[in-house]
C-alpha cells in the first residue's frame, strides 16, 4: 500500500518531517518498508544566476563561470553547453550530498584542470527531476536568487507500507489519517466521508437495482448521473493517483480510483448504454456464464461467483473487476455509479478461483467499512459533478438489515496487568475514543467502530490499541521472575546429550533436508514405494517424499563432499523420519545415521596418515557410544541387510532388542562416489537407543594385589568368532580370571587353509591375596584343556 505524505496532509496537520512520520507509522504497526521521494532535491541546492562565462584555458568543453547565489559570487567550472551569462540555474553548493547508487557523493571544493570550482550547476536529471541531461536546468529569469530549490518545487514522499491483514482500514489515506489523529492526539481537519446527506436527495428508483443474493451483497447503491463529459482529470488528482501507484485514465475512472485510495471503498462506474434494460441485477453467476473482464481475458464463472449483471448477462465480477464492454467510454454521457458492500469470503473465493486479484478485491476480501459505503459514493458523486459536470438524477439503495455494532466490556486493571504498563483510566478512554471506540455509559463498555469490526473482538484487542497509541517504547524493564522448571519434560536435553556423545566419538554432525525424491527414498532396498508418505502438493518431484530414512541424505552428503575432494569423512545425522507402513515402522520416529570413509588419521603423517578406516573403526565408535551412554547390556552379531555387504555387516543389540545395523555399504549405494576408500555406515533406531536400560554407577573396590598374566594362543577354524571364544571363556568360570583380551589374530598360508591364529592375554587377580604361580598355572592349564576340547582349536 502506497501512502503519500502530501495526500495525508489534506486531512490533518502533520507537524513532522517525512522521516519522523515514517518512524511514527512503523512504531504504530503500519510498517513503512520503503520511502520514495519525488519532486525534491538534496538540501544545499539553491537558485543562482550565471553572471559571466569564459572559456577554460586548458579545455575545449569546459567554461569558467562567475555565479551569483544571492549572498555570494562563486567561481564554478562547468561543462554544460548552456551555462550562458544571464541564466538562472540550480546550484549544488559545497557540502551538498547526492545519492549515488547505494552510496552517496558529496560536492567538494575542487580544481578542474587547474581552475578552482566552488560547486556544481545541475541538469534536471542530476537533480532527479526529469530526464533532461542536454544542459543545465534553466529556471525562470525572475526567480529569487539563493533560495533552496525545494522551495520552488512541490516535493512529495511516498511510503510503501506493509498492512497487516487485521487492518483493512489502513488501506486508504483517510484511514491512515484517522489513526494518525489518535497517534498525534490531533484533529481530523477534513473528512471525505462526512459530506451532507442532503446532496443525495434525488428520487429513489427501486427498479434500478435488484439484489438476488443479499447474503453476498448486503448493501448496493447505484447513483445515476446524466450529461457528464469524459475527459482528463486535473493535475492534482493525476499526481495523487500516481503517488499511490495508479495510472490516470479519464476523469470518471480516476475519480472512482481516487475515492478508493482515499476512503478504502472500491467503486465502479458503468455506462448506462451497456446495461441492457437499464438496470442492475446482483446475483450469482449461472452455469455456463462467462465474462470478458477489463484485462481482456475471458473468465468462466460458476455459482460461487457473485456478479453484477444487466437483464441478460454479467457486466462485472462483483468486487473484483468490471467487464470489458460495460465501462466508461470516451463518449459516455450517463453513468451509473456503484458503491457496495460484498461478503469478504465470497470475494476472496472468487479472486482465488479466477486467479484475479485487484485493488478492489484486495480491499473487499480484507473487509470494507460497510458504514462508509454510501458516504464514499457521495464523495465520488461530488467529485463527478465538480470535474465532469452532469446532473444527478436518480438513485437506488438496496440494503439488508445491519448487524448490531459490537460492544466490548473492558477491565482497565486487567489491561494494565496484561501490558505491564501504567496507563491511567482517563488516558485509556481518551486513546480508545480517538480511535472511534465510543464509551456511552458510566460502565467501561466500548462500541467498536464500523471500520474495526474485523479485528476488535475483545478486551485484548483494546489492550493492543492502548499499547499501540500509548507507545510500546514506554514498556518498563522488569526482572524476569524465577520459576522452578520441570526439566523432566525437557525432551530436547536427552538429544543434546546424545549429540555430545556422538561428537566425542569424532563424528561431525550434518543436517539434511527432510523432503526427497522417490528414487532415493527406495534405493536402500528397505522401503518400497508403498511404505512412503507422500505430499499432496509437493513443490517438485525432487522434494515430494518425507524421508523414510536419513540414509539417502547421508549418502548424498558423502558423495557431494567426495566430489569436492573432501574424502576423509565421519558424519552423523539425527532427525525425524517417516513411514506409511505401520508393519515396518511407526509413522514418525527419530533415527540416527552414521557414515565413515577415508583415512583414519588424515591430519597425521608418515605411515599413520595412510591408514584407512575399516569396519572396526565404525564398530569402535558404536562401542564408545554405548559406553558413554552407559548402556547396560549390548552386543553385536553378524547379520545380513540389503544395505550392507554380506559378511561385513552386523547388528547392534541393546538389551536383546535390535537397535541398529551397520557395516560396509553395498556398491549399489556408493556407485559413482569419487572415493578410493570403502564407506561404512550405521542406521540406528533412536527409540531403542534412548530407552536402553542404563548401567548404574556403583563403585567397585579396586584390588591392591598384583596381577599375574598368561597368554593362550591357538589355531582355530576361520569362521570361529571372537565372541564365541569370549563367551566360551566366560562360561568356563575360570577362578580369579579378571579379564581376557584378544591381542592378535591373523591368517597365513603357513597355518593351512581355513585356519587362523588367535591369541588372548589373560589377567588373573584375586581381590584378597596375592595368587601363587601354582594356582594360576593350574587355572590356565585347565582353561587350555577346555578350549582344546570345547572349541576344537589346536593349542600352540
Amino acid at each position, binding site marked *: 500500500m502506497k501512502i503519500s505524505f502530501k495526500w495525508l496532509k489534506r486531512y490533518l496537520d502533520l507537524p513532522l518531517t517525512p522521516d519522523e512520520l515514517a518512524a511514527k507509522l512503523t*512504531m504504530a504497526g503500519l*510498517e513503512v518498508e520503503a520511502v520514495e521521494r519525488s519532486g525534491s532535491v538534496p538540501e544545499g541546492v539553491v537558485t543562482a544566476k550565471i553572471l559571466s562565462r569564459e572559456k577554460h584555458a586548458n579545455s575545449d568543453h569546459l567554461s569558467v563561470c562567475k555565479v551569483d547565489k544571492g549572498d555570494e559570487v562563486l567561481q564554478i567550472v562547468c561543462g554544460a553547453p548552456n551555462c550562458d551569462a544571464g541564466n538562472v540555474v540550480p546550484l549544488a553548493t559545497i557540502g551538498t550530498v547526492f545519492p549515488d547508487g547505494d552510496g552517496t557523493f558529496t560536492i567538494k571544493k575542487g580544481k578542474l584542470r587547474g581552475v578552482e570550482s566552488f560547486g556544481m550547476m545541475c541538469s534536471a536529471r542530476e537533480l532527479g527531476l526529469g530526464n533532461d541531461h542536454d544542459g543545465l536546468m534553466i529556471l525562470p529569469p525572475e526567480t529569487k536568487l539563493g533560495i533552496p530549490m525545494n522551495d520552488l518545487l512541490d516535493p512529495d514522499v511516498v511510503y510503501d507500507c506493509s498492512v*497487516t*491483514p487485521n*487492518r483493512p482500514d489502513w488501506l486508504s489515506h483517510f484511514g491512515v489519517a484517522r489513526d494518525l489523529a489518535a497517534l498525534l492526539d490531533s484533529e481530523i481537519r477534513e473528512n471525505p466521508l462526512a459530506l451532507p446527506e442532503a446532496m443525495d436527495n434525488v428520487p429513489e428508483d427501486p427498479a434500478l437495482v435488484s439484489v438476488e443474493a443479499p447474503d453476498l451483497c448486503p448493501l448496493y447503491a447505484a447513483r445515476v448521473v446524466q450529461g457528464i463529459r469524459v475527459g482528463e482529470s486535473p493535475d492534482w488528482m493525476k499526481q495523487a493517483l500516481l503517488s499511490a501507484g495508479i495510472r490516470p485514465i479519464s476523469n470518471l475512472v480516476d475519480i472512482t480510483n481516487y475515492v478508493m485510495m482515499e476512503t478504502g471503498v472500491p467503486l465502479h462506474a458503468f455506462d448506462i448504454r451497456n446495461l441492457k434494460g437499464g438496470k442492475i441485477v446482483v446475483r450469482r453467476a449461472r452455469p455456463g456464464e462467462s465474462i470478458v473482464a477489463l484485462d481482456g481475458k475471458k473468465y468462466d464463472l460458476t455459482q460461487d461467483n457473485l456478479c453484477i449483471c444487466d437483464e441478460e448477462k454479467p457486466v462485472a465480477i462483483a468486487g473484483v473487476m468490471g467487464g470489458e464492454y460495460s465501462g466508461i467510454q470516451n463518449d459516455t454521457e450517463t453513468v451509473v455509479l456503484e458503491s457496495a458492500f460484498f461478503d469478504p469470503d465470497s470475494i476472496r473465493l472468487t479472486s482465488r478461483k479466477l486467479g484475479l486479484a485487484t485493488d478492489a478485491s484486495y480491499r473487499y476480501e480484507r473487509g470494507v467499512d460497510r458504514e462508509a459505503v454510501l458516504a464514499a459514493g457521495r464523495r465520488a458523486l461530488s467529485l463527478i459533478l465538480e470535474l465532469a459536470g452532469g446532473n444527478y438524477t436518480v438513485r437506488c439503495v438496496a440494503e439488508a438489515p445491519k448487524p448490531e455494532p459490537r460492544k466490548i466490556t473492558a477491565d482497565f486493571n486487567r489491561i494494565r*496487568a*496484561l501490558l*505491564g*504498563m501504567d496507563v491511567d483510566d482517563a488516558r485509556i478512554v481518551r486513546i480508545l475514543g480517538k480511535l472511534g471506540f465510543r464509551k456511552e455509559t458510566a460502565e467501561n463498555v466500548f462500541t467498536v467502530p464500523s471500520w474495526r469490526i474485523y479485528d476488535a473482538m475483545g*478486551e*485484548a484487542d483494546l489492550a*493492543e490499541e492502548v*499499547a*499501540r497509541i500509548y507507545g*510500546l*517504547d514506554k*514498556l518498563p*524493564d*522488569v*526482572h*524476569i*521472575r524465577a520459576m*522452578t*522448571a520441570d*526439566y523432566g*519434560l*525437557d*525432551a*530436547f536435553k536427552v538429544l*543434546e546429550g546424545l*549429540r555430545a556423545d*556422538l*561428537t566425542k*566419538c*569424532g*563424528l*561431525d*554432525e*550434518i*543436517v*539434511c*533436508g*527432510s*523432503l526427497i525424491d522417490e528414487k532415493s527414498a527406495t534405493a536402500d532396498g528397505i522401503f518400497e514405494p508403498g511404505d512412503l*508418505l507422500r*505430499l*499432496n*502438493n*509437493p*513443490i517438485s518431484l525432487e522434494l515430494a517424499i*518425507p524421508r523414510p530414512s536419513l540414509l539417502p541424505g547421508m549418502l548424498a552428503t558423502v558423495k*557431494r563432499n567426495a566430489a*569436492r575432494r573432501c574424502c576423509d*569423512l*565421519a558424519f*552423523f545425522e539425527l532427525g*525425524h523420519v*517417516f513411514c506409511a507402513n505401520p508393519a515396518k515402522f511407526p*509413522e514418525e520416529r527419530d533415527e540416527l545415521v552414521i557414515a565413515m570413509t577415508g583415512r583414519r588419521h588424515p*591430519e597425521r603423517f608418515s605411515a599413520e596418515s595412510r591408514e584407512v578406516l575399516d569396519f572396526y573403526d565404525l564398530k569402535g565408535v558404536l562401542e564408545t557410544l554405548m559406553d558413554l551412554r552407559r548402556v547396560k547390556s549390548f552386543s553385536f552379531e553378524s547379520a545380513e541387510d540389503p544395505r550392507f555387504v554380506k559378511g561385513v555387516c552386523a547388528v547392534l543389540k541393546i538389551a536383546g532388542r535390535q537397535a541398529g545395523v551397520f557395516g560396509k555399504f553395498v556398491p549399489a549405494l556408493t556407485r559413482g562416489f569419487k572415493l578410493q576408500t570403502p564407506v561404512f555406515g550405521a542406521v540406528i533406531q533412536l527409540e531403542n537407543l534412548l530407552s536402553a536400560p542404563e548401567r548404574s554407577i556403583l563403585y567397585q573396590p579396586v584390588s591392591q594385589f598384583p596381577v599375574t598374566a598368561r597368554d593362550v594362543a591357538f589355531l582355530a577354524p576361520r569362521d570361529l568368532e571372537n565372541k564365541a571364544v569370549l563367551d566360551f571363556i566366560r562360561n568356563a568360570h575360570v577362578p580369579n580370571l579378571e579379564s581376557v583380551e584378544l591381542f592378535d589374530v591373523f591368517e597365513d598360508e603357513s597355518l593351512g587353509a581355513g585356519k587362523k591364529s588367535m591369541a588372548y592375554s589373560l589377567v588373573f587377580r584375586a581381590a584378597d591375596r596375592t595368587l601363587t604361580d601354582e594356582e594360576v598355572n593350574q587355572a590356565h592349564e585347565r582353561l587350555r584343556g577346555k578350549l582344546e576340547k570345547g572349541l576344537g582349536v589346536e593349542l600352540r
Partner: protein
Amino acid sequence: MLLEELLQNLNGIRTDALAALQSAKTDAEIEDVKNRTLGRSGAVTALREVMAKIPPESKREAGMAFNETKNAIQNALNEARERNASATEAAEAIDVTLPGRRPAAGRLHPLTKTIQECCAIFRRMGFVAVTGPELEDVWHNFDALNAPLNHPSRDPQDTFYMPDGRLLRTQTSAVQIRTMTGMKPPVRIISPGRCYRRDTPDATHGVHFHQIEGLYVDTSVSLADLKSTLMTFAGEYFGREVAVRMRPSFFPFTEPSVECDFSCVMCGGKGCGVCKNSGWLEIAGAGMVNPKVLENVGYDPREVCGFAFGFGLERLAMLKHRIGDLRLFSDNDIRFLHQF
C-alpha cells in the same frame, strides 16, 4: 715387591680405563669399562684382595694409590656418561612443529549449535525445551492457534499437505498446544525444531527451516515480561548489549501482537547494509497469547494469561556468523562444518 706390583697394576688399569672411556661412544661401552674396573668382579675391586696382603708399613701408600685410581676412573666415568648423555639428547631432538596426534573430536552442525545455545539461555530463565511431531494435524497447527479459516498460511500454496489432510507443521507452536493441553499452568516452555513452508529454495528460503518458540502462561504475565525476556536473550546470545524494540503487529495466535526488533548486531544501531540502514533487525514475532487460544486448550483466560514468541534459527545463526546463503546449512560441506 707386592706394593710395587700393586702400584703397577693400578696404573695399568687406570691407563687402560681412561683410554677406553676416552674413546667410548655408547652407554654400553662406558658401562663395560665400569664393569671391568669398578664393578663387582672388576679389576680394581679384585685388587682389594692384594691390598689385604700388603705389609702394614706400605698399607698407607697402597691405600692412597688404590683410592686415587678408583676416583680417577670414577671421575672419568662420570665425564664420559655426561658427554654421552648430551650426545644422545641431540640425537633425540625432534621437529616439534610436526602436527600433533589429535584425539578425534567431532563438531555439531551450526544450526544445532544455535539451537543449543538458545535453549541454554532460555533454560537459565526457567524454560523447558519440548519437542513434538513434524507431521501435524490441522487442529494443532492452525485451528487451536486461532488461525482464521481463510488465513493465507493454510493455503496449499504455502503449506505442505498430506493426502489425508494432515500437514508438515509450519511452526513449532503446535508443540505448545500439545504441551498446554497436557498440563496445568504455570507453563514455561520453548519448542525448538524443524518447520516447513512451501517456498522455492533460494539464498534466503528453503522448504524447511528451524525455529524456536517460547511460551509462558501464568496468573500474571505481561508484555513487559516478554520484552525483558527477549532483551535478556538478545544480550546473552550476541554477547553484547542489544536493545529490543517492539512494534505493533498482527498474528492470530497473539493479541496484542508485536514484532520484535533487535538493535543491529553488526553496526550497533548506527545503520549498515545488514540492517538496511535502519539500525534494527527484525528478529521475532511475539505477543500476548490470544484468549481464544487459551480457551482452546482448556484454560480460563480470565484466570491466566501469557506471552509467546518465535524466531528463526537460521537467521540468528546467519547474523552471528555472517553466513550469506541459507543453502550452506543443508549443503553440509565439511569445510563449512569445520568452521564451527
